[in-house]
């Protein structure tokens, strides 16, 4: 059974279609990339997967997360799936962390929910020990200091590691990463990508990786869906889609990425 199965999903704001009849599925442990340019509906699709669409957007079709129909389901039902079946890592780590809450407490929140779900209620010291362990797993130096810091007191790369630690704290079956490296500089990007890739493999999590950056996507996923203006124009294994793109739009994306690489290497 698929962890996430989307069938004929259409999203619209008022009468403007944003995503049209999109279908794809992610099996346990599978890694799928959703690519396309800004405004192609990638992030909205991710939000729709957990039923967190803005009120103004209407959804039709079917989204099943962990076997549960998401569209039209009550928040009470979905709260049980969020953090259990799926967890998110967002693009902008500064705004994705509560500015007035110390990092340690922010990681402790989902951690406590998960351990309670597992039937062991952690208290102060034991909880903090696990928070520190999580911070170490995402390769943060001096977890003691980081845990006591506010988000504005640590660097962008460190903040994204904290956000990843928060997602890991949920121990989800499916990790949804929405442009997790876009807001970071190139060297940090590579580090975060490596960390994410390693953690997903290590834990056998499924991954829905959303990005506009082809080389980044190619590095971490097996299969891709190419979105253009809310319509899936191509789908298949990474090597196939990027090696021999069938659709005009995919070809232009690949060409653009090649041109960029060529420019970097100084060859015309």
């Amino acid at each position, binding site marked *: 059974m698929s962890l996430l199965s989307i069938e004929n999903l259409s999203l619209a704001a008022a009468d403007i279609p944003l995503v049209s009849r999109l279908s794809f599925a992610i099996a346990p442990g599978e890694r799928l990339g959703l690519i396309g340019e800004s405004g192609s509906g990638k992030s909205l699709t991710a939000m729709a997967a957990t039923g967190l669409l803005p009120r103004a957007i209407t959804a039709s079709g079917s989204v099943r997360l962990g076997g549960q129909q998401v569209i039209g389901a009550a928040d009470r039902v979905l709260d049980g799936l969020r953090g259990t079946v799926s967890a998110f890592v*967002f693009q902008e780590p500064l705004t994705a962390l*509560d*500015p*007035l809450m110390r990092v340690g407490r922010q990681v402790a929140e989902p951690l406590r929910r998960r351990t309670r779900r597992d039937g062991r209620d952690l208290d102060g010291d034991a909880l903090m020990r696990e928070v520190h362990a999580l911070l170490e797993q995402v390769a943060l130096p001096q977890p003691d200091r980081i845990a006591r*810091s506010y988000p504005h*007191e640590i660097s962008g790369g460190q903040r994204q590691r904290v956000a990843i630690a928060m997602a890991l704290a949920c121990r989800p079956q499916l990790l*949804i990463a929405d442009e997790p490296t876009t807001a970071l500089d190139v060297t940090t990007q590579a580090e975060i990508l490596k960390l994410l890739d390693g953690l997903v493999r290590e834990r056998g999590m499924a991954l829905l990786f959303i990005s506009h950056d082809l080389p980044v996507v190619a590095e971490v996923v097996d299969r891709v869906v190419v979105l253009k203006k809310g319509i899936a124009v191509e789908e298949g294994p990474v090597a196939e889609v990027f090696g021999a793109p069938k659709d005009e739009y995919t070809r232009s994306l690949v060409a653009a990425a090649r041109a960029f690489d060529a420019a970097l290497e100084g060859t015309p």
Partner: protein
Amino acid sequence: MTTLDALAPHRRDHSLSLWIGLILVGLHVAVALLSLVWTPYDPTAMAGGRLEPPSLTHWAGTDRLGRDFFTQIMIGSRIALIVGIGAVAIGAAIGVTLGMLAAFASRLLDDALAATLDILIAFPTLLIAMLVVAASDTASLGSAILALGIALSAIVARLTRILAKRVLVMDYITAARTSGTSWIGIVFRHVLPNIWPTLSVNFALQFGLAVIAEASLSYLGLGAPPPNASWGRLLQEAQGTVYTAPIGAVAPGIALVSLVIGVNLLADGLRDIGDPTRRLAR
């Protein structure tokens, strides 16, 4: 590790306004507490001649019935603090609840609440308070506090609604939702702490507003009835003798202004300490 790290943690910058506020409010609180156990004279007894000027025996003179004026001001401190705290507590309880409901409500309910609040705010606070007092049977300290609390709640509700809405669209709310935080958890763990710095400063402004409004109610005879020595009633009683014994108007006036200014300065200073992101900006 950036240069910001070295600056940010544990930096305590006690500003001047915090200290002045602390001293002024502390003075009023001390005087109010002291008045519970000791006053220079019995507040209702004729302690001296009528309308005596300030002297060593009567620090602020006596009123037209010969009662010690400083004693009355001390009792007034107590009443002002009770009114301020009571009215703000009621206003905050009703206002924050309503504002939070509006922020989370459906579009239609939110619009209805927002329009109602705008209409309520269009009425002067004092007018609403007068209507509520008039609706209750007798004028008492309790009804004045309730009236002011209700009048203030509209302002608190509107502010809460706007602040909460601004926080609700932030990424960290979405992030918390994606990890399974319930709406109740969102309110108490993320929304309230993030709007608190602004709200608490506003509560201090409301406190000042409530103290002044209660003085106005008492001045109009709608506040705490005699022998409760509200500053407003002292001002009203001094009106007839303001040319012969100006101290009767000046003393409660100074008491009123110093408390209101003190609370505002204190709130301003506390906000800077309470908000970790502001410690950097200073």
